[in-house]
């Protein structure tokens, strides 16, 4: 059909509706109309509006819309309008007829602003009748999505009693509709129904029933019980019509966090389990969040002290109380941690600005791609990692990525490329920044490190390629590299490494000469409280984060072999390098080995190390404090921990210990 045919169809059908309107309105002046007739009046105006809008005849659509609103009120309330109102409606019908004839003749309909205004003045404000029955926003209880609620979707299952302990992971997603989305409340309902096909919908804020009548800004949160990952659900929703953004928020733990242990505590545990359906949002200043987390950290510390100070009989009442305390505090900590999660996406504009500004200043073309923007991290980790990340970006743009001419000569695209990816791996977060620049030459690094006497010749030869690349993070060396202008990385990589360590993380570097460099930061999702092994060596207590240790061992004296100046032990098919902690840190001569030495086994890359200590004191929660200057410059330490007895223990960075041992 062409547009002329549509116009003809529009004209003829509009005339029918206008005739219907005129006849019924004339009748209404003589007698009361039947409900069916009032429905017809409304329908005529409504259909006319829809057709006019589809043809793009805005003046006709506006006038018929104003009529429709007035007639809608009549239909809903049943009270007959006054004679004056009927006259107004008749006048509007006449004007509509004139407008339709004008457009039928190829002319342009005039805007009837006065008449529209007069109709609006009479029409009841925004269908108040509908508002009366709707529940207030925020009154979302269990079951509001069920059959009883006016806005309920028929096939959204009600969050039944069974929902409280189904063990499914809880998660919350936030959906933002495109600005100007037509009928946003209806759109939100459709999205909820789609989600209900994939997951159990526990709640929605604001309440879907209230969206249609209250001012709905097009932003809502849905809490779900599902085994699907949040990112998957979010990308599913993001592909739906009118969705501008969808991201997972804090991933809640399953509703039953380790309450199975003591039956006496099970009841209270169930009560204190998170109730994701009780939504509603409050804004809290970040300092208060920090204070809350600090408080929780201190509480955990006190608890650990208490546990040591008390002599608790197994099976006693006191032990039951202590266990209950422990569970409640763990839950409290998890909740506070979850509250502090922020999506990586919030930092993307800042990264883009950094890259854009630097590239412009250095006259280079650089494309930035950021992935994993929906991964949520603790606010402090996210903020703290920005500094090292920006440092890496500066280095990549300044020294890694070549100018356009050099790149072209090397057969690369003129524009350099940087990829940043944030991903979660089990209990760790991995932040990777790769460039396709000129790469770093490990040979050159070895040479400079030797020349500057940072390492011995034997150590330099023992270093693997990856280990040699880490030499760039030795303070002073990177500057040296810069001055000798070796395939270029600039200053300050030592700062990057120490910042990452302060977060309880680990920096690793991979590079291919001519092809680019990848920096990888392996971080804990939240830095402040962590579990650690406490061990003693050379009279001091040290902490080693549990997340870095694979297992503990006992190394028998006769199993220790010498190999190229190193001590190694055979473990299965694997050769494990033995690192005597006391000797490494205190410089103490290796003591006569005891018949058996306890050790912590860990890996750096493919290499396995056993950190030999005098005694492993146990595993405990520690509150991590950043190291004060100048201790932060020591690569072997990741931070400090306050122990239960108030003493301070240094937290070791096993990866850098390994490196230091090889470089020494």
């Amino acid at each position, binding site marked *: 059909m062409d547009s002329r045919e549509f116009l003809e169809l529009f004209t003829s059908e509009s005339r029918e509706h206008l005739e219907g309107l005129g006849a019924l309105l004339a009748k209404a002046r003589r007698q009361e109309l039947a409900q069916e007739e009032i429905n017809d009046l409304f329908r005529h105006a409504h259909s006319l509006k829809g*057709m006019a809008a589809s043809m793009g005849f805005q003046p006709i659509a506006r006038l018929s819309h104003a009529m429709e*609103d007035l007639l809608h009120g009549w239909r809903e309330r049943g009270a007959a309008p006054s004679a004056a109102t009927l006259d107004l409606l008749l006048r509007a019908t006449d004007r509509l007829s004139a407008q339709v004839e004008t457009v039928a003749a190829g002319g342009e309909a005039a805007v009837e602003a006065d008449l529209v205004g007069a109709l609006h003045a009479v029409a009841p404000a925004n269908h108040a009748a509908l508002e009366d029955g709707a529940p207030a926003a925020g009154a979302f209880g269990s079951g509001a999505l069920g059959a009883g609620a006016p806005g*309920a979707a028929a096939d959204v299952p009600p969050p039944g009693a069974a929902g409280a302990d189904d063990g499914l992971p809880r998660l919350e997603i936030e959906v933002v509709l495109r600005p100007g989305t037509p009928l946003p409340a209806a759109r939100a309902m459709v999205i909820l129904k789609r989600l209900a096909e994939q997951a159990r919908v526990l709640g929605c804020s604001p309440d879907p029933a209230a969206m*249609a009548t209250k001012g709905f800004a097009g932003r809502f949160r849905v809490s779900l019980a599902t085994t699907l990952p949040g990112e998957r659900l979010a990308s599913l929703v993001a592909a739906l019509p009118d969705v501008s953004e969808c991201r997972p928020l804090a991933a809640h733990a399953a509703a039953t966090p380790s309450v199975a242990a003591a039956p006496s505590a099970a009841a209270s545990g169930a009560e204190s389990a998170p109730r994701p359906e009780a939504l509603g949002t409050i804004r809290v200043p970040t300092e208060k969040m920090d204070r809350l987390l600090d408080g929780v950290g201190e509480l955990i510390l006190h608890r650990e002290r208490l546990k040591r100070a008390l002599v608790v009989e197994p099976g006693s009442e006191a032990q039951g109380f202590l266990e209950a305390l422990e569970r409640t505090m763990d839950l409290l900590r998890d909740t506070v941690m979850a509250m502090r999660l922020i999506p990586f996406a919030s930092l993307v504009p800042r990264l883009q600005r950094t890259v854009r500004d630097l590239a412009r200043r250095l006259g280079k073309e650089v494309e930035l791609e950021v992935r994993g923007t929906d991964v949520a991290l603790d606010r402090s980790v996210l903020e703290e990692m920005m500094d090292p990340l920006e440092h890496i970006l500066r280095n990549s743009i300044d020294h890694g990525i070549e100018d356009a001419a050099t790149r072209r000569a090397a057969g690369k695209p003129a524009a350099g490329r940087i990829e940043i990816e944030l991903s979660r791996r089990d209990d760790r977060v991995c932040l990777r920044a790769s460039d396709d620049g000129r790469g770093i030459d490990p040979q050159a690094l070895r040479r400079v490190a030797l020349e500057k006497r940072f390492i011995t010749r034997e150590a330099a030869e023992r270093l693997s390629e990856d280990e040699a690349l880490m030499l760039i993070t030795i303070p002073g060396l990177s500057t040296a590299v810069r001055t000798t202008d070796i395939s270029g990385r600039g200053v300050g990589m030592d700062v990057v490494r120490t910042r990452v360590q302060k977060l309880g993380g680990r920096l690793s570097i991979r590079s291919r000469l001519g092809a680019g460099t990848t920096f990888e930061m392996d971080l804990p999702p939240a830095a402040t409280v962590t579990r650690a092994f406490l061990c003693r060596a050379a009279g001091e207590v040290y902490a080693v984060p549990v997340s870095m240790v694979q297992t503990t061992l006992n190394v028998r004296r006769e199993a220790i072999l010498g190999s190229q100046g190193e001590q190694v032990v055979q473990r299965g098919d694997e050769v494990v390098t033995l690192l005597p902690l006391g000797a490494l840190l205190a410089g103490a001569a290796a003591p006569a080995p005891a018949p058996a030495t306890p050790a912590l086994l860990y890996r750096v890359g493919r290499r396995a190390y056993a950190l030999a200590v005098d005694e492993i004191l146990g595993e405990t929660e520690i509150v991590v404090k950043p190291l004060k200057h100048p201790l932060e410059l020591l690569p072997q330490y990741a931070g400090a921990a306050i122990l239960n007895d108030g003493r301070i223990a240094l937290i070791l960075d096993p990866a850098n210990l390994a490196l230091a041992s090889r470089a020494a």
Partner: protein
Amino acid sequence: MAIRVLIVDDAMFMRSMIKDILTNAGGRYEVIGEASNGREAIARFRELRPDLVTMDIVMPQMDGIEATREILKLDGGANVVICSAMGQEALVVESISAGAKDFIVKPFTSERVLQVLAKVLPGGASAAS
């Protein structure tokens, strides 16, 4: 195989417009029937068993909400998409509660109609029950 569509709207103008959009969608859709009110829609649905129904809300005799409810009673897996004019959001919300899968607001563009319908039946006709 094309997705078989029943178009329900009291205005022939609107039916023609939707039909025009669907028949120009590269053979993905085939309009197999039309109805101009809710009652007719139910009868045509029973007879044709279409893969997809586009449903106006405000119609004489029986409105689209009522018709949607009835159609879903006939076939719980029926794909009904509401085609309604702007305003009266509560009516659209009600029809979604009644079981409609999605909605399109008049005035609409061809792209918009095809975008929404593609999300309702992503896999083509075979995906419909």
